[in-house]
């Protein structure tokens, strides 16, 4: 009898080069995305050892973390120098290393440039059933297309460059099931935040997740990318969606996707990549779609979630003593008090962007609310950073850029930007940002910056009112629904 296998086990089995007696496997890596922060020392290691990149054709380099989101070329097409010498140096290293090792580079002035986790799917570089790695923890994003994708460290980047493999131990499996229909005004970001809140930031450690149930089946690829992206915030290095018709429709005719007879052969194989009926997961988490509401974070961990209609929790309400202490520390950092209504929290900065929420659907959702409206007077700075040059171009073709700029937002060039502030885009100390990014860690958006994670629609709603806002109130007004 054939063993019943989960999707993860099928992809794993298809990539075993060698199985060691202790259970460790040498796993083949089909796709390697490289950016400027975690790759310089890996390329240097190759150079010192006189090694080559084994499969430059499976490797794609894109700068994203350090790039300024202000214009990169002047009117004459000349490069505008990057102010931070260390950022400039990391970017220059990638531009030197990629050609030296024969790796394709999408450069800072190419329209295809963007955040690696936006570019991979968009170019069709990310495919179902592939193993995909990158020196960045949000590599989990690519699981949205059914790729087994995870972040790695610099020594591992070098190992993959040199050997196209990694020595790995198989993970445990967890299914995350959300059945039903999402309520009015509830988005994939709210689902991702709800999962973080439910599982906790360490709950997925040691597991590969598979997202199952009607909510995920009905979700667009953009929505799935948002959910898979935040798998790592629940501790799981990877989160998978079984490839389906939505996946195939998204990938067809993408520049780097298979074409013609190859496409047909690929789809035929991809259709086999589903968890067998009756296959066992090591853990199952079930969430009712009806329980998911528009969500915000109140603390400094992605698991610190609460309904936007709710209040800041009382640290004393946590059972665990260490959690009580952590919650109090979070509240002190965030400048919030227990019992305070989230809807009363004033916001000074709005950031719409990051590998979590910078794709065209995200921008459409925010623009839909901002159309004909303006940011509140208390908002000091509001910014949209599209995930890639192609997202930016598409948004401009749809006139979204005008909606944003008319509303008082800045319309920027693509990159990681204020998600982690390695470039000049930072939130000042003590100021509060409604952000569509993935981490509300202390100091993440800049030293002392206070981050509330929200969906793109909720970020737009906060921009309009100047405080954290239940997006459903604005949507109802828009649709003329009586309150």
């Amino acid at each position, binding site marked *: 009898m054939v063993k019943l296998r989960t999707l993860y086990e099928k992809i794993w089995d298809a990539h075993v080069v*060698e199985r060691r007696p202790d259970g460790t496997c*040498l796993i083949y890596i089909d796709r390697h995305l490289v950016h400027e922060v975690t790759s310089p*020392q890996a390329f240097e290691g190759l150079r010192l050892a006189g090694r080559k990149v084994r499969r430059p054709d499976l490797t794609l380099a894109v700068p994203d973390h350090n790039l300024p989101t202000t214009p990169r070329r002047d009117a004459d097409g000349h490069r505008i120098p990057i102010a931070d010498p260390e950022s400039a140096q990391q970017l220059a290293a990638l531009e030197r290393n990629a050609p030296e090792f024969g790796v394709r580079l999408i450069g800072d002035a190419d329209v295809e440039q963007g955040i690696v986790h936006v570019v991979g799917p968009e170019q069709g*570089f990310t495919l179902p059933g592939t193993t995909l790695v990158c020196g960045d923890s949000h590599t989990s994003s690519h699981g949205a297309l059914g790729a087994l994708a995870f972040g790695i460290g610099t*020594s591992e980047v070098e190992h993959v460059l040199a*050997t196209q493999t990694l020595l790995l131990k198989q993970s445990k499996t967890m299914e995350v099931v959300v059945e039903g229909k999402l309520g009015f005004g509830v988005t994939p970001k709210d689902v991702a935040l709800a999962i973080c809140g439910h599982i906790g930031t360490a709950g997925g450690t040691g597991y590969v997740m598979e997202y199952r149930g009607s909510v995920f089946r009905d979700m667009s690829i953009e929505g799935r990318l948002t959910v898979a992206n935040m798998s790592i915030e629940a501790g799981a290095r990877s989160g998978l969606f079984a490839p389906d018709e939505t996946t195939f429709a998204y990938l067809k005719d993408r*520049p*780097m996707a*298979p074409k013609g007879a190859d496409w047909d052969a690929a789809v035929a*194989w991809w259709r086999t990549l589903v968890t067998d009926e009756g296959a066992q997961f090591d853990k199952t988490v079930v969430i009712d779609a009806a329980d998911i509401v528009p969500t915000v974070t109140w603390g400094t961990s992605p698991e610190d979630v609460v309904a936007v209609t709710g209040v800041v929790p009382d640290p004393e309400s946590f059972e665990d003593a260490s959690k009580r202490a952590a919650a109090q520390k979070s509240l002190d950092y965030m400048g919030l008090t227990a019992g305070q209504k989230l809807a009363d929290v004033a916001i000074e900065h709005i950031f719409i962007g990051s590998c979590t929420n910078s794709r065209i659907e995200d921008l459409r959702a925010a623009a839909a609310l901002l159309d004909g409206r303006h940011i509140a007077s208390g908002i000091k700075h509001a910014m949209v950073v599209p995930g890639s040059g192609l997202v930016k171009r598409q948004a401009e073709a749809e006139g979204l850029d005008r909606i944003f700029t008319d509303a008082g937002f800045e319309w920027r060039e693509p990159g990681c930007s204020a998600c982690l502030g390695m470039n000049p885009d930072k939130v000042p100390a003590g100021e509060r940002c409604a952000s569509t990014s993935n981490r509300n860690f202390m100091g993440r958006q800049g030293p002392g910056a206070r981050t509330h994670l929200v969906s793109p629609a909720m970020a737009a709603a906060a921009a309009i009112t100047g405080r954290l806002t239940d997006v459903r109130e604005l949507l109802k007004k828009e649709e003329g629904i009586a309150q």
Partner: protein
Amino acid sequence: MDKLTTVEGKAYPFGMKNVDTDIIIPSHWLKTISRNGMGRGAFEVLRKEPGNVFDDPAYADSPILIAGDNFGCGSSREHAAWALGDLGIRVVIAPSFSDIFSSNAFKNGILTVVLPQEAIDRLMEVAQTDQIHVDLEQQTVTTQFQDRFSFEIDPFRKHCLLGGLDEIGLTLGDADGIGVYEAKVAQDRPWMIPAVA
């Protein structure tokens, strides 16, 4: 990776407990592009203190570092191992290490030796004036005063360090297996190679 068989020389009598990787190399060094030269950032904050062991000419270029409990805790940054290596350190001796630091050190050809606190105290004393001898083959730390301390090490790590074998070198030793896998995929799933746009 350089082979490591025996290391003999002066040792920094450091001894500090709970040294986290932020102490070994502060975060602003993460924006660099080279593993080399990171020694300049090693223990940057401690080196601002007068009389620190790292700037004491008596211990200049020591290949051995003697530290306290829980060395290398905190952030997983591999830069900590790079910084020590760049400082010329091949062996760190302490009562315990964080797992991640140990693994990163090993990947960069640095031996971590676990010895009980009494042994550490004695070695700290010897290091003030005399050299220390580490023999990986024999798994011993000795001094000219008849001190002899034995240590344990994972056999795979020992094998790699003695042979100067890095993980990449070992995997490449299996290049035939990788080639066989690639040939099979080229046949079964030829569409796996990204189309050239």
